[in-house]
């Protein structure tokens, strides 16, 4: 019950945010937080729930971003039409990477994802058709509403919020489906799960492909908001890093973990950038690195797990009590 109250308070705040804090900077910040929350939530499906740490997730982000901008720059279509293409690309690529590596230990998967992301970045940087180092641009002047090119960040904010809600709904649905149970079992002990008949490799692969599809949508939205994509902003390893650290800081494997991470880190980066200017770029990532090391060392579950643990004794007993009465009740007749 208390959970639903909290949820509706957060949802109400998210909907009211751009009206409460209505300066362009704040609205843009809000849109970015929600956008990164989408990407981090998508990463969370494979990194958190399946426990496979993808370090090259930007490659799917890039699939979406390049597909959206490519639809406009190459075919004169609305960037929206690129989204399905980006999803197909991302899912195909995920299968190519995932089929061999998800059978091996997790280190191979992590390293392979870096190698794939770097390969794609190098290939795109050297491909004239994809704009090489300059990248691709979206519509400068919107032809109609479907170009999704707005001056204000407000429409983007609500668009992103809707997609975030869908992403979270999919994640929630997944965790409560058969797949979610498999994933939990595999994460606890892959050997035990396999011996009980859970298709471990296939389940991890499905999680990876789902995550790739959602990440590519985030990439497409990002490109639409900024109106362009180049190899650094669409395929640079630092985007992967941001996505990963947001999920890990908030709490990997928790539904709202990535949201907490994005709500902390995006404002931190934007503010430090506006204070320090160009010089801040290096320093921001020094801080990011330090945060990741500290989380790994002291709190691998993330911040949200810390909060949940504090509130746990109460909820835990109540949970076990209800489950007991449930089973008793069901056994009674």
């Amino acid at each position, binding site marked *: 019950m208390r959970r639903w109250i909290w949820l509706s308070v957060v949802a109400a705040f998210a909907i009211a945010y751009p009206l409460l804090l209505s300066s362009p900077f704040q609205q843009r910040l809000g849109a970015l937080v929600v956008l990164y929350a989408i990407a981090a939530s998508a990463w969370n499906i494979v*990194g*958190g729930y399946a*426990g496979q*740490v993808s*370090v090259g997730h930007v490659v799917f982000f890039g699939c979406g971003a390049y597909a959206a901008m490519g639809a406009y720059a190459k075919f004169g279509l609305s960037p929206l039409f690129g989204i399905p293409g980006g999803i197909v690309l991302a899912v195909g690529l995920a299968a190519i*990477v995932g*089929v*061999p*590596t998800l*059978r*091996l230990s*997790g*280190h*191979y998967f*992590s*390293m*392979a994802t*870096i*190698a*794939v992301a*770097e*390969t794609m970045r*190098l*290939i795109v940087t*050297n491909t004239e058709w994809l704009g090489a180092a300059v990248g691709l641009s979206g519509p400068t002047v919107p032809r109609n509403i479907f170009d999704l090119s707005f001056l204000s960040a407000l429409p983007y904010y609500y668009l992103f919020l809707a997609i975030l809600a869908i992403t979270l709904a999919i994640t929630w649905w997944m965790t409560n489906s058969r797949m979610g149970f498999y994933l939990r079992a595999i994460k606890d002990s892959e050997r035990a799960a396999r011996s009980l008949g859970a298709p471990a490799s296939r389940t991890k692969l499905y999680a990876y492909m789902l995550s790739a599809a959602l990440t590519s949508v985030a990439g497409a939205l990002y490109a639409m908001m900024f109106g362009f994509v180049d190899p650094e902003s669409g395929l640079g*390893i630092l985007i992967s*890093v941001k996505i*990963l*650290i947001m999920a*890990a800081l908030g709490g*990997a494997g928790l539904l709202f973990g990535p949201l907490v991470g994005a709500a902390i880190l995006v404002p931190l980066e934007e503010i430090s950038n506006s204070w320090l200017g160009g010089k801040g770029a*290096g*320093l*921001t*990532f*020094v801080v*990011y*690195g*330090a*945060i*990741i*090391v*500290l*989380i*790994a*060392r002291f709190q*691998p579950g993330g911040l949200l797990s810390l909060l949940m643990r504090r509130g746990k004794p109460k909820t835990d007993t109540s949970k076990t009590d209800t489950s007991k009465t449930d089973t008793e009740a069901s056994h009674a007749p």
Partner: protein
Amino acid sequence: MSFVLVQVIIGGLLLGAVYALFSSGLTLVWGMMNIVNFAHGDFVMLGMYVAYVVYTLMGGGPLLGAPLATLVLATLGVVVYFGLIRDIMKGPMLAQILGTFGLALLLRYSVFWWFGANFLSMPPNIVGGTYAFAGLRIEASRLLAGVVALLVTLGLHLLLTRTSLGSKMLAVAEDATAAQLMGIRPDTMQAIAWAIAAGATGLAGALIANFFYIVPTVGETLGIVAFVTVSLGGFGSVPGALVAGLLIGVIESLSGYLIGAIYKDIVVYVLFLFFLWFRPQGLMGKM
């Protein structure tokens, strides 16, 4: 034409020996503790910067820079072991990967922040020109790097297989609890392994600093090279790393020469993915 090809292959072998040197550090740590150091390439990068600082501040060449870089990195290795690795080793996989990956970022961007993103390089004649031999021209700095790296890698193999220290480390790798019962301290042995592994990267970095471009992000490429080398050679095997390192050096040089310099990294990465598909146990190792 064929002379050029021979020269390219020799250049590849010399660079490959350096790859083998720093990859044997990664393979040692991986084989012994089952932990993958994602900051390994950035350790090499730090070795390069130590050599660069030694040159710019003191005017010292590799004779001073290489031992100093080895020492600095070996110390860093021990600090990292006791400060981070020892604790995350027992943790979940997510913590292991995040821990060393975060360390990589921390090192990379600290250097970026301090030295800037510019490409730095050492003066070309610091090791003394070029040798002409039977129509082949070989830079002294590359020859020095290749030969020293080869000797040190072989020495490392002998250390692990022929000395009592090596046997103790092997015992800890096999079964840390059993080793402890035999009076071997796993903690000490693992710290020594980290010192050796990081020291090897420091030496390798100082050696290639003489002819490689020096830039904070070089560690990312070198880290992937190390990973490719280890997965090609079979993890935990120093001889495997040596063969794989030389092979990758040659493949990289040849593809750089035949297809184009921008594609040599792509060739190595694709080779890696190809191996993961068809032979994940490596060329000679077992899983």
